[in-house]
């Protein structure tokens, strides 16, 4: 092992008080599990997985809606691979199942691919499922702009995009929880800048912006532990190679031109004000909700899934009575089990 890594681990493991540190990004959850980081750090550090996987937090109703769209004739659904297996209000509803029933559902890697598909299928309506936090919101905005410039009018977006700040605030305002520090997702911060997380300084907690490789996570923990030792509650940046103070202003301007905040339902958590992103009036011709309005079903059955509590870090996946006992990656009940970066799935896969 690299000497510097060893040195950092040693420093981390000198921490003598117990702390709860929450990662809010599923990729961090994965990296921690995959690299066996829990096994190599002091038991004083309790790593909690928070609401970081946009796949996990997408509401049942939204999945049901896109599933039904997929089953319509002459509609092509384009989506990042992550969403394929996410179940809606029951396990038989998912984009994968729709595909199995003959729907035209295509996995894409970039939102621009969806625009290309629209161009090649002028007689079909091509719907792009916009998911994710600040990292993917500009990509959706760029696709809309591209469609506009190229005069493609069979391209529509279903935006279930979410913002990080409101949900972190929701976590912080939950009195049952006791989070001492946040591992901030490095790529969200790349867009928002360190500035985008300075709101945390108004709370009583430590934080560091962290990259995703094993080394980077260790470095982030190292930085946070230093700050804890020093009582330094300023937002740390352990991802300086990419993340700047101001972030990517062009990207933010781009998405603020095309989308705007709205109240949104987080699966398992509930409605959080101004936490979702919708397409602005001006760009509504690209909004699928204009042609197929999304209606929330207030009478929806409440799932036995404890994702909500897992997502805000109140319980660990294993504490859900369904974990591995009815709910597993093959038959996921809750969204946390679906996405490979969902907390439950990550715990299940790497069952450390």
């Amino acid at each position, binding site marked *: 092992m690299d000497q510097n890594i060893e040195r950092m681990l040693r420093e981390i493991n000198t921490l003598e008080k117990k702390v709860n540190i929450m990662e809010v990004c599923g990729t961090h959850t994965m990296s921690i599990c995959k690299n066996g980081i829990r096994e190599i750090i002091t038991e004083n550090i309790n790593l909690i997985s928070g609401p970081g996987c946009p*796949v996990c937090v997408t509401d049942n109703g939204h999945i049901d809606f896109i599933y039904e769209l997929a089953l319509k004739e002459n509609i092509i659904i384009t989506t990042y691979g992550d969403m394929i297996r996410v179940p809606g209000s029951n396990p038989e509803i998912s984009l994968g199942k729709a595909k199995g029933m003959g729907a035209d559902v295509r*996995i894409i890697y970039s939102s621009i691919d969806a625009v290309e598909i629209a161009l090649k299928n002028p007689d079909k309506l091509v719907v792009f499922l916009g998911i994710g936090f600040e990292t993917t919101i500009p990509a959706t905005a760029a696709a809309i702009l591209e469609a506009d410039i190229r005069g493609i009018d069979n391209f529509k977006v279903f935006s279930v995009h979410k913002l990080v700040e409101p949900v972190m605030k929701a976590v912080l305002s939950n009195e049952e929880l006791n989070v001492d520090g946040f591992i901030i997702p490095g790529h969200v911060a790349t867009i928002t800048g360190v500035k985008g997380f300075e709101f945390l300084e108004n709370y009583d907690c430590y934080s560091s912006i962290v990259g995703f490789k094993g080394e980077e996570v260790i470095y982030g923990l190292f930085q946070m532990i230093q700050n804890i030792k020093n009582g330094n509650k300023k937002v740390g940046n352990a991802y300086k190679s990419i993340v700047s103070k101001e972030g990517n202003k062009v990207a933010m301007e781009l998405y603020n031109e095309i989308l705007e905040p709205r109240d949104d339902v987080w699966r398992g958590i509930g409605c959080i004000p101004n936490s979702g992103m919708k397409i602005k009036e001006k760009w509504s011709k690209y909004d699928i909700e204009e042609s197929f309005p999304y209606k929330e079903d207030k009478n929806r059955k409440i799932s036995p899934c404890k994702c909500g509590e897992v997502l805000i870090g109140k319980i660990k996946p294993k504490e859900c009575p369904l974990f591995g006992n009815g709910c597993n990656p093959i038959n996921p009940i809750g969204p946390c089990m679906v996405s490979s970066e969902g907390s439950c799935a990550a715990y299940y896969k790497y069952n450390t």
Partner: protein
Amino acid sequence: MKKTITMAHGNGGVLTSEIINDVILKTINGNTLENMTDATIVDDKYGFTTDSFVIYPHFFNGGDIGKLSVCGTVNDLVMGGCIPKYLSLSIILEEGYEIEKLQRIVESVKTTCNYSNVKVVTGDTKVVDKGHGSGIYINTSGIGEKIENLNLGRDNIRAGDAVIITGDIGDHGVSILCEREKLLDGQLSSDCMPLVKLIPLIKKYAKYIKIMRDPTRGGVATTLNEFVENSEISITIQEEKLPINEKVAGACEIFGLDPLYSANEGKGIIVIDGTVASEFIEEVKNINEFKNAAIIGEINKEEHGKVLYKSRFGGRRILGKLTHDMLPRIC
């Protein structure tokens, strides 16, 4: 609601063994996968194996469905401890398939058979209605001659044995996924290859070899799990020892894939007595086709029935069987 087949029943992982064990084997002979290895020795002299190939695309970097169909069965025979001799070739064609493509595929069967020194001795052709196939599906079954002094089986595995892979991990699965999803414009290449050049070494080290398997669907992780599940031993593999082609590693980073769960079509995993492992691996690496072979781990008793993955930071985690097929993802 009625239980139905899902794609995950075919990925070689957890659900595949479930359907094989609970529906097929339990009915046919009351047993589970244990007794149904990829190549079965009959009359104590011959190995017999079968596989159907439903790959799409039919032509890919590094091979085609014809080559793959021969490799799959040849490799099951070799890994089952047999010298491949005879193949059957059964083709299901979809109405509308181009005959010229069929021709190329059959030529590829021929070439791969020649390389492997096997003969196609029996065959069948069926045609299904348009919309009920995928152009072409191929089944090959194979008969091989059992290699003497070789006694393969999970029961032979002992703590201290070494786990060897004959080359880079995950090339086939990652490259096919990228070709199918039209990613990376064919920069990767399948490892699709017959393992026949291992035969002399298998003969030579016959009494030291405990078990062999070609880690196809489900990848290395799933195969290793099958070696130890429900046993009292475990396998620990080490991140830094895993041979991975750097392009494959790059593709995995881009699309969030894991080579350990990705199929291989020209690799063998060999568990061999630890005392001869380094000698054996040197001989393997001397064969050009297997120059990237490596000892990737060892058998121990750390955790009953588990495969453990030790990261480069020393962290350990359990490496389970494949649950669902990998998809390119962004998060």
